[in-house]
């Protein structure tokens, strides 16, 4: 009963959020100065051409009507046609999405590994120089955003010691035998590890740049959560049972500490994905974010709309999944 009510309210708020997103996207685009039609037309188009196009895009109707026409189309998966690429927006956007998802996923794995590792070290060797070092690392990684890490990485491992690739998703000379745009995944499934390595060599720096701030967030949250947990009576009791400290942390403290960390990581993961916009630009990585900036620069309104909406849906979905996971992993909530 309560669980059902919780899920219902969650669905309602999600719907409200998505509707709000749609309104904002629509509004921002419509207040754009300059006539969108004028941008679509070649110079010297006649007034009749303009009027025809206006009618075609529904721009001659009232703003509210326009919104609902637009919303109806969007809900049917019709995001319109890109002005600059002249293809179906949904097709373009979905084609680019895998690149961004793979990059984000790689970054998430790196961030979790570093974050959990650092938090564990700081807890295992608390009140020693190790904990202080972790604090300093966290402090630096937290205040410096991904954009700067990206630049610093390009300089060090791209220019000074050219170990990794600094631009693109995969070397253009490689022949890709793939049927989907999930290159990394497909190269693994098809045992084409040469391509995997090439992909990773392109992805590793942008992924680390994206991961560092999140790693610091995870490390800091988990560390303070662990600190609290380590002072709980059940951890003290576990110590009196004769278990070594490492097992006490792993078995008794970690599971409890990770739950609150996870809820906050959900929001942070959306920040990470948001970060791909500029990081993809920086590394000329052919993902959604890079496409988005091109779209803005080209004033390609349908494409911008499509990308922003896709990001919004993705973010809302992530938050929903994190909430569900939290409920599943927490016995207190699972058993009502």
């Amino acid at each position, binding site marked *: 009963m309560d669980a059902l009510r919780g899920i219902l309210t969650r669905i309602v708020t999600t719907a409200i959020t998505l509707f709000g997103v749609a309104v904002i996207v629509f509004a921002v685009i419509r207040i754009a100065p300059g006539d969108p039609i004028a941008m679509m037309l070649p110079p010297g188009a006649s007034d009749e051409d303009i009027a025809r196009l206006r009618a075609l895009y529904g721009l001659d109707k009232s703003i509210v009507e326009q919104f609902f026409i637009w919303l109806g189309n969007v809900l049917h998966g019709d995001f319109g046609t890109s002005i600059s690429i002249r293809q179906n927006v949904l097709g373009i956007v979905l084609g680019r999405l895998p690149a961004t998802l793979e990059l984000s996923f790689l970054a998430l794995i790196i961030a979790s590994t570093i974050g959990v590792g650092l938090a564990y070290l700081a807890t295992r060797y608390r*009140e020693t120089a190790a904990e202080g070092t972790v604090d300093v690392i966290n402090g630096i990684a937290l205040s410096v955003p991904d954009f700067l890490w990206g630049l610093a990485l390009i300089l060090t491992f791209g220019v000074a010691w050219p170990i990794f690739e600094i631009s693109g998703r995969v070397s253009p000379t490689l022949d890709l035998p793939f049927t989907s745009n999930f290159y990394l995944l497909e190269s693994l499934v098809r045992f084409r590890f040469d391509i995997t390595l090439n992909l990773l060599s392109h992805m590793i720096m942008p992924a680390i740049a994206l991961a560092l701030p999140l790693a610091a967030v995870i490390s800091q949250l988990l560390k303070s959560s662990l600190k609290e947990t380590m002072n709980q009576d059940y951890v*003290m009791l576990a110590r*009196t049972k004769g278990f070594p400290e490492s097992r006490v942390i792993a078995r008794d403290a970690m*599971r409890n500490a990770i739950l609150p960390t996870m809820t906050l990581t959900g929001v942070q993961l959306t920040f990470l994905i948001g970060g791909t916009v500029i990081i993809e630009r920086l590394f000329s990585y052919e993902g959604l974010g890079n496409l988005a900036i091109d779209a803005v620069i080209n004033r390609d309104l349908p494409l911008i709309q499509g990308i922003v909406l896709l990001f919004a849906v993705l973010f809302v979905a992530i938050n929903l999944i994190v909430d569900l996971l939290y409920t599943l992993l927490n*016995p207190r909530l699972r*058993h009502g």
Partner: protein
Amino acid sequence: MMADAFLDIADLSIVLRSDRAHRLLRSVDLHVNPGEVRGLVGESGAGKSMIGKTIFDILPRAVEAVEGAVTLGGTDLLALSSNARRREIAAAAALIPQDPLTALNPVRRIEGQITDRLTAILGFSKKAARDRALTLLEEVHINDPERVLRSYPHQLSGGMRQRVLIAAAFAAEPKLIVADEPTTALDVTVQKQILRLIAEMQAHHGTALLFVTHDLGVVAKICQNVTVLFGGKVVEDTDVKGLFAHPAHPYTAALINATPRYDRPDQSLLPVPADVIEATRAEIAKADAEWLSQRGQTLKAAS
């Protein structure tokens, strides 16, 4: 008598690592004989929990035992390596913690929390450990032990959880149980049931019990002997009858008079006289001065 004490803490001093002249425990002697129930009494800051933490080798890193010996069943604990010490302690002693609401891990089922020490350290098979857990839960008067073993802590009431913790403490048949204010967080009616249960289990298993509390009423009901702490120093070590009949130290006497009792409203809850506090503090200061003058050089050399 001291020779056959099961727990023998002798001349234990604990200092802050940051200020090694500052003692938190001041040359404490404490003995618990096999099968004895001893109360350890003091107000907050008296150092009672510090003693418990020393026994289980879980002192915070900010403090350090600088001298004295802790002997458990004839083994000198401070001479062992850290991991060996923990195993030794775990086999010989167990803790009943203060707050049943926080002493069980919320994300683990009860079964593992009773049996983990048996399977992981004492080499029980999973089946044997489970059988043992069932027996223990029956001993602490839990009606449907099977269900309780499968439960998570939040599915049990506070009194139930304290019973589970008591059962877990007796799991490995320890020779010594340290009960750290096990009833402070409970309502009085539940407190009485739990005290009765602890006494029953103690008698049944013949375990030595060190009962840490601030409540002289509880001491009177459950302990045979008692050690009173003030400011990290033992001010009284006597049997419980003697404690109430003729307390040797003025602070103990004042503490008894400060304890509320409904049958004598006008002769209880009397504030501890300032001169008693002053005198006791002076005593401690004097002992500290002597201690420092003897060990000042070594302390400096060490830090």
